[in-house]
Each structure stands twice: as C-alpha cells, then as structure tokens.
C-alpha cells in the first residue's frame, strides 16, 4: 500500500508540475513552428523569470508572484530585442546557424546570471510552498496547484490568441508561408517579433510560477531549453493537446524518478524516451507541420 501511495503522490505532483512545463515550453514550439528557429536561449527566459521572482521576494519583500508585473514588460522587451538583433539578421541562414546563435545567447544569459546572482542554488520558501492541499492521502503543495492551474489558463489564452484572433491568423499565415503572407500585406518581421516576445514572456511567467517549489541556479536555463526541445519532439509542432501531454510526460517522469532514484536519472529517462520516440515517430506524437 505504501508503494501505491508513493506512486499516486508522485503522479499528482507530476501532473501539476507537468502542466507548468507545458507553459514554459510553449514559446519554444511557437517560435520553431512559426519562424523555424530553434531558440536554445528559451530556457534562459524561464531562469530569468525565476530570478525576478527570487529578487522580488528577497529584496522587495513581496510575494514572488508579484514578479509577474515585472516579468511581462522585461521579457517582452528583451525577447523583442533578441529577435530584432539576432534572429532578423540571421533569417534566411541555414538552420544550423540559427541553432548556434541560440546556443550563443543561452551561454550569454547563463553567464550573465552567474555574474549577477552567483552560482548558488537558491530556493524560495513561502507559506504556499509548504501548505498542503490533499485529497484523501494524496496531496500537493498549494504553490504547485496554483502553478498548474495558472499554466492551463495561460495556455488557453495563448491558444485563443493564435486560433481565434486576427493577430493569430497573421501568425499562422506567416508560419505557413512567410513570403505569401508578406504579399498579403502582413509585416512578417513584426508578427514574428510579437510571437517571439509572446513566447518568451510566457516562459518568464512560467518561471515565476515555478520558483516557490523549484530551486534556481544559472544552468537551469539550458536544462529548460532541453525540456522544451523534448516537448517539441514529443508533441510535434502546433498542437495544444500534444503540448499538454508532453509536459505531463516530463512532469510525471521527473516526479516518479525522484521517488526512487537520484534526480539526474529523470533527464536520462526523458532523453532516452525521446530518442526512442524519434526513432519510432519522427514527426512527434501529434505532429503537424506548422501552427
């Protein structure tokens, strides 16, 4: 019975963390689907959100959730600038070049964080982190509940924007065929920039949601980029259900592994599973071509 309890407990935690992972990796798939850019620096924005929340809590003495107020303008501005300064000049280059540029950005951001915040692994403990919400014997922390629910809401908002608004239609048009979209009077780079900013902003918000139950250190950015890559491979491009399933896969693998093995194994299992999936179904479980 103890076994069953451990597993159901891990599953519950995994589900809510997984939903948050779906949110933080959303932008990565979005960017890849629309402009065919593997933005390896995507995870850096998650890390940025986490550090913002950490500083809001430590230095301003406020609830880390208030960091969302700063995260939105900062992440959008930095994201827009990164797109304009790095990916616009590189558009039309081979995908490998863009991949390497993303790697350069990731290295830059990681070490900027190292310079500013040091190498220590820091956690934020607030009441919500320890407050347990339980059904029968199975419980999760309130912070995890908040993160999971807020992530589902955010994903719904982004999906609404992409599939139900005029802007979203432009985004999808650009994703299908940038030149044709341009012919129709769509300002491709502006649409791309907005989509890019939207993507990294959701990542930063996800970072804020994660901090009450996830410790932060500079290398975590690359770890999240890797997670995003895994989600992209598992889900394929342009599918919200795929995104959620892939996120849950990550969250549950991680929490189940953590119950039995050193945490490093989670990544091993995920990557091996992904490589196997790549071999069986290269287009992803729900794969389509674009958004």
């Amino acid at each position, binding site marked *: 019975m103890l076994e069953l309890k451990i597993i159901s407990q891990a599953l519950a935690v995994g589900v809510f963390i997984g939903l948050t992972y779906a949110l933080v990796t959303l932008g990565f798939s979005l960017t890849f689907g629309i402009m065919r850019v593997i933005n390896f620096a995507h995870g850096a924005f998650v890390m940025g959100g986490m550090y913002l929340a950490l500083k809001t809590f430590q230095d301003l003495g406020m609830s880390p959730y208030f960091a969302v107020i700063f995260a939105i303008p900062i992440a959008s501005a930095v994201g827009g600038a990164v797109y304009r300064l790095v990916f616009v000049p590189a558009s039309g280059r081979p995908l490998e070049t863009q991949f390497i540029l993303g790697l*350069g*950005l990731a290295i830059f951001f990681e070490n900027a964080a190292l310079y500013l915040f040091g190498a220590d692994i820091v956690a934020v403990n607030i009441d919500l982190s320890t407050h347990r919400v339980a059904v029968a014997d199975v419980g999760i922390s309130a912070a995890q509940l908040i993160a999971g629910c807020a992530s589902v809401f955010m994903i719904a908002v982004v999906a609404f924007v992409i599939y139900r608004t005029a802007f979203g239609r432009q985004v999808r048009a650009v994703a299908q065929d940038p030149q044709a979209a341009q012919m129709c009077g769509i300002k491709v780079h502006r649409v791309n920039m907005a989509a890019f900013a939207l993507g990294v902003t959701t990542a930063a918000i996800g970072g804020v949601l994660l901090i009450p139950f996830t410790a932060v250190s500079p290398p975590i950015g690359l770890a999240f980029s890797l997670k995003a890559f895994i989600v992209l491979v598992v889900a394929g491009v342009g599918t919200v259900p795929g995104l959620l399933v892939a996120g849950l896969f990550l969250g549950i693998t991680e929490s189940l592994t953590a119950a039995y093995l050193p945490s490093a194994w989670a990544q091993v299992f995920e990557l091996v599973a992904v490589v196997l999936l790549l071999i069986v179904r290269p287009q992803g479980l729900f794969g389509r071509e674009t958004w």
Partner: protein
Amino acid sequence: MIDKSQAPNSRAKWPGYLARKWQIGVAIFALVALPVVPYVNDPYWVTLISATLMAAYLNIVWNWAGGFAGLLSLGHAAFFGIGGYTAAVLLHQYDVNPWLGMVAGATVATVSGAAVALAAFRFKVRGFYFALLTFTAALVLPAMVKTSSFLGATEGIFLPLKDDVTQLQMFDRRFFFWTYYIMILVALVVTVAIDRSSLGRQLRAVKGDEDAAESLGVPAARLRVIIMSLSAGFTGLAGTVYTFQTLLAHTETTFDTGRFFLVIISTMIGGLGTVAGPLIGAFFLTGVRELIDKVPVSSQKAAAVSMMVYGLLLIGVGIMFPRGIVGMVEGVGGFIGSLPGRGRKHTATVSAAQYRSPIVAESAGIGFGRTKDDTPELVVTGLTKRFGGLLAVDDVSFKLYKGEIVVLIGPNGAGKSTILEICSGFLKPDAGVVTFKGKKISGQPPHKVNRMGIGRTFQKTRPFENLTILENVLVAAGLRSANTTEATAKAMECLRLVGLVPQPGPEALGSYLSTGQRKRLEIARVLATDAGILLVDEPFGGLDERSQGPLIDLLRYLRHTGCGIVLVEHKLSVVEAVADRVIALDSGRVIQEGTPQEVLQNREVIEAYLGGAGELVKPAPNRH
C-alpha cells in the same frame, strides 16, 4: 585542366584552392612557431599553451563531423569520456600499460562513434535531432558511470603518479605540450587529406544536399558513419591523454559537456568547415580569455564574463561571418583581389539564350537512336504506390530502350514524378518491380540505383550551393575516376557539353547560377555519373523560348550517344520535338501510349488535360 584564366563571375571571392592554400600556410606557421613555447622558462605559459593545443586538437577533429559533414554533434564529450575511462579502467583494474590503453580508448571511442552514427542514419535522425541524440549520449553515459563502483562511481578513478614516459606521464610539463603538439600535427594532416580528397568534396555535397548527393551515387550514410567514427576515435584519444595528464577519470571532468560547448564556439569563431579555422579559433579564444583575466574581478566573475564574451562573439560571428575568422580574411582577400589593376576580370555572364553548345551542329537531323533488335533496358512492371488513401501510381508498366526518349505526360497529380522517384530509388513501390538490364532496382537506395547506371535530375533544381560548378560535377565524376586529373577532365567535358564552360566558368559558385544554368548544371552532374538512363523531371520548366532550343539539342544528342531518357514534360512543343514515344497518365494510370501524334490526338488524353474541349495539337503533316 582547369582553365585558370577564367575569372569567377560571382561575387568577389577567392577560388577554393587558393583559399585553402593560405589556411595551410597559417597552420604551418603556427606549428613552426609553437615549439618556441617549451623553451620559455615559464610553467604558466607552457600549461596555458598545452591546454590551448588540446582545445585546438578537439576543435580540429570535431570539425570533421560538425564542419565537413554538417553533423552538429553535442555528444563528443561522451567519446572523450569513453576514451579516458577505457584507459583509466584498463590501468586501474587490469594494469594495462597506458600507451596500450590509449589505443584501446581510441578504438572503443571509434566504435561508439560508428554506433551512434549508424543508429542515427538507420532511423533518419538528422539536424537538431542528431544534436539531441548525441547530447543524450553525453548525458546518459556519465549518469550510468556514477552508478558503477567498477568505474569508480561518483568518486572517480585516481591514477598513480609516476615520472615515466612508458606510463604516458612525466613531471616535466613539456611532455604533454609535445604530446598534444604531435596529435595536432597528425590531425591537421588528416584534415588537409580529407579536404583535398574526393571524400571531402563528397562530404560537403552531402552536407549541402543529401538527396542530390545520393542521386549522384554518393553513399551518404556510409560517409557520415566513417567521418563520425574517425572524429569520435580521435576525440577518445585526447580523452586518454587528458586522463593521464590529470591522473583522474571523473564524471564531472572527463565527461564535461562544457568543454565541447567551447569546442563548438571556438570552431564557429575560427571558421566552421575550414582547414585552419578550428586552430585559429582555439588560440583566439585563449587570447580573449587572457585579456579578460587582466580585469581585476574574482575568478568566478572573470569566468562568467569570459563566457558572456564568448557567447556574444559567437552571435556576432554567426551573424556577420558564417565562415568565421577564415571567412573574414577571405572577404578581405577577395576585396583586394577585386581592386582595379589586379588582373582579376569580372566578365558578365553570357545569357542562356546566347549560348550555343558544341553539339548543335552534330545534332542537327539526328533522329531515333534506337535500333530494332535492342532489348529493353529499363522495364517497369505493375508499379503501384499509395500515399495514405491516395493511389498515386496505379499498376503502371512501360519499357525504355537504349537511345530512346520516352516522355511521360499528364495533368498535375497524374503520378509522373512519383514514377521517377521510384525508378531512382527515392521512393519504394508498394507493388511492382523496376529492372534495369535485368537487375532489380526498385527498393534499392538512391546511391546504389545511380551506381547501377540510372541518373536523375530534380524538378526543383538542387545544385550544391557551397561548391563551385566544377566541384559540383566532380562529386559525381570523382566517384568514377582513378584520380583527380581524370575526374577533372571528365567534369570539364560534361560542363562543356551543357555549355557552362567557358561561361560562367568552372569556378563560379553553385548558388549564383540562373535558373537555366542550374538546370544545365544538373544535367552535367548526372552525365558525369556515366548513367545509361536519364530520368529528367521537367527540365524545361521556367526556361524561356530561346533557352529551350539548346536543351532540345542536348537531349537529342544524348539519345544519339545511346542514352535512354525518361522525360517528364508539360510543354507540348517540346514533347513533339524530342519524344520517340509518349505515355499519357491520369490519376496514376497509363491511359495511352504511342507516338506523339497518336497520343496527343487521343480523346481520353485531351479530356484528361483539357476536360474534353479543344485539341492539344493540330493534326500535323508527318514531321519526320
């Protein structure tokens, strides 16, 4: 062979051979200058340069896979670690001499590289996915090592300190300097050999366009496995030496993925896929690091700052100089070369319409090349191909004789291109067989089909844009010639035949050609494969009226020489001009086969094309 007076018509750029020559010069200069270092009596410098040499070595061998072959491996840390651990375990557990351990480490790493590459190509894992696959290897292996007490678990394996050359270590710091120096020497020689051999050209072709390379008979998968195992083996070798330098095999240092991020960064900065770039990049990065270390901050902050600078450098170089420092120097060299009075003429391209190939005169009045007693060369029987629910090709059978042009016509979606894809090995049929001279070719991979004597061109032209016109053709010619001289002669002959020589000339880059020139380059390439049968997909698409004449002449000439040609074409004037037989397709089925006149006046064919009304061709007087 190469007419060197022909200036490239393209953007000012050094021709390939000159560019590589100065790079070799840089490498030789570095190798001559470096031995001074051990005699500078400053251990700091000896250590620093030794470390830089190892980094340069790793760059050079990573570049074989990452640069020449376009295999962006993030997993070389695994090969490095495999090498190091193999040697360490052999010494620690079995008391095997480190020099033997070094050979063993390199061997195991080579095999691992081959295994990764084979797995990747067996399952078509490419591009970023290849990067992810290899990165997985680099993360999974140390995690597994940590669980094994035999491999030292989390503590690592400590090696005994000895001052003994036979134990691959000495107290004298210069020992490792010289070890790395010799390793670099070997690696550079191999690099130059790869770069100058047809292997290098084929690798660049595969990197540029794998399908096109395979269509010319290049065994892409095998080449990538070869280069990957070579690169992995040399990396493993460095792993063993490093392990004996540090006297420790540990998951955090021996399997350090960060080291290989630096490899990628500095190789990019120096020049990805170049000869001297990786070497230059490593020393450049050390220089930057030394400058930053002069800034008075804590060592951790200095490390962070230098990595930030590396990141920015990588971005800057990536955007502005895709070929890194080497590309930058070439740009300057090309600019100087293009200055007035330097004797480098930039003549305008003769337009496609003005070109007259040498075969025009010969081809006038050439008719059927086919003789009655021939047996069919290409036999297509009951070919069927489905895409999901769509029946793209439905029980198609036809024969092609030597010296005959068969044209496939039919509305879009009739299955014409699919038939060519199957005959050239790019698609496997669901049913039916294609044989060539009695041997089955359907189901064989494209490069084998080509080796058997069937060449194809692509509807949307696919030149290797990073290669010159001559190199494009050499990819094909080099596979069938004993030596470079012979291959070059053959390539030039093919280029002359299609009219790409004398203008725009053999040194123009594939990416700067016009539509008509690209089409002719594809034909030159496929001619160089010695194919007895050509599958040509809409070569006239996008050509203006005046450019069509020479191409018609060329097709007739090839027929005259005994080539069998399957042509997919929509332009009816062309069909009438070259076809010996026409096969009309609709919805994947053959609806009519016969002479051009018979087929083009057939009711069913007209209906398929025009929906019933009008006529495709006027009943004309006999044209032969």
